[in-house]
């Protein structure tokens, strides 16, 4: 199953806001990858259980949708993102209170910097990823694109400086990065598909499970 595009998700949420229970189930399926992404890619990833908080976020979102306090689908998206972030922040605070990390400046910095961390990757996954990136760099069409990626990601040179150095417009720079990600996705999907996808089947099952729970809680039966 491929995820619906953004405008389709907006229509699904709009229908859910009218009280359409079927649309509500589809809304949960559709929002889950995004909410999970906010939690997994946010600054507090290290200290939270993203799957748990995704559940919690979606529960709060469904309650708000049912209470009809949100009228516009776009407000639902923003509300879901804010809720996810706040829950993550609270979970991280709680975790840090239990630890003796007292240097708040360091905590903030680590929280930001640890965004790259993906402890769920095994050594073998890590190696496959490195091989995929090497393949990507080998297949880039121009020397300049390779230079751009290496200098941007390896050397940490900023975009403005690189654009000046390589004679690129910022738009062209963005296009190179977007193309690189797209090629990497193709390579990974071919060689190690488990590194490329969100666990889609899990998201469907979880959303169905949540809807079931809500129905039973509110109406006493399925």
């Amino acid at each position: 199953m491929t995820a619906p595009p953004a405008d389709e998700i907006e229509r699904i949420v709009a229908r859910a806001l009218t009280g359409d229970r079927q649309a509500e189930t589809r809304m949960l399926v559709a929002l889950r990858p995004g909410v999970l992404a906010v939690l997994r890619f946010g600054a507090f990833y290290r200290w939270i259980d993203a799957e748990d908080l995704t559940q919690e976020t979606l529960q709060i979102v469904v309650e708000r949708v049912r209470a009809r306090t949100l009228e516009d689908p776009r407000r639902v998206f923003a509300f879901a993102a804010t809720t996810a972030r706040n829950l993550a922040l609270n979970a991280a605070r709680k975790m840090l209170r239990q630890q003796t990390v007292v240097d708040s400046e360091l905590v903030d910095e680590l929280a930001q910097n640890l965004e790259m961390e993906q402890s769920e990757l095994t050594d073998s996954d890590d190696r496959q990823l490195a091989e995929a990136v090497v393949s990507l760099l080998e297949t880039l069409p121009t020397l300049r694109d390779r230079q751009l990626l290496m200098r941007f990601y390896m050397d940490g040179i900023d975009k403005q400086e690189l654009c000046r150095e390589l004679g690129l417009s910022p738009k062209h720079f963005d296009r190179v990065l977007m193309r690189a990600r797209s090629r990497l996705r193709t390579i990974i999907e071919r060689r190690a598909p488990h590194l490329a996808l969100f666990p889609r089947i899990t998201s469907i099952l979880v959303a169905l499970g949540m809807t079931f729970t809500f129905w039973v809680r509110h109406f006493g039966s399925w």
Partner: protein
Amino acid sequence: MKSPDHQSLEEQFRLVSRYVAGDLSRSERAEFEAWLVASPELAAEVEMERRLRRGIASAARRGWLRRGVLRPAAHHHRWHVALAASVLVALAIGVSMKLPRGGVEGVADSHTRLEPERILLAARTVRLGSVRGVSTSPDIIVARNESPSSLTIEPDVVTLTCEDGSIELECPGGAPAQTPQYPEYEMELVKRGGGSVAWRSSSQLASARSPLSFTIADPGSLGVADYDLVVRGRSAEHEEVVARFWLRID
């Protein structure tokens, strides 16, 4: 958040790299995350950006990207790819012998043009005290064009406790403290100024007899920047940053 038309979504796609690097302002981030919820395509793009960063860091750590020379693991290529490559290489050599010098540019050539040749020196070991000095200069400086082949850092940061975990000058029975406060320690290299985790050691068992020792292979391959060397002690129930030092690559 604007209406999710194609153009607005494309605008967000351009922000992916900055989002992952933590460079968006608070309001930009809030809008971006609302889009993230609304668009699984954008979420997949963010995921791929992270994979790209992680993959490049991993390849660099393995020495496959050093100075732009791509050296993936040999076992990865299948035999027929190798055969095809051999034919191409033979052809390329044949053609290059006909070309004037400097007429064919490779990845490695281009990178040596961008930056001066690096000289790898012998391995270097640095011992760091548990108390960081109050001076405003870095604890370790590595010149990138004369970097050691490896940098071993031995931080004296393990606090010894009595068997019951108490920190005393003298333990019950008059014995000295001999139990490391944490069974495991690890070190991280965090780029300053909103940068990323550039390197992380594996966990190391602490011992009362020998100091911790963390080795960074080819520190010169790290970008020119200031880094925090963060040492963390870890037990099953507890984790703590026990020391922080300053490394400069210039």
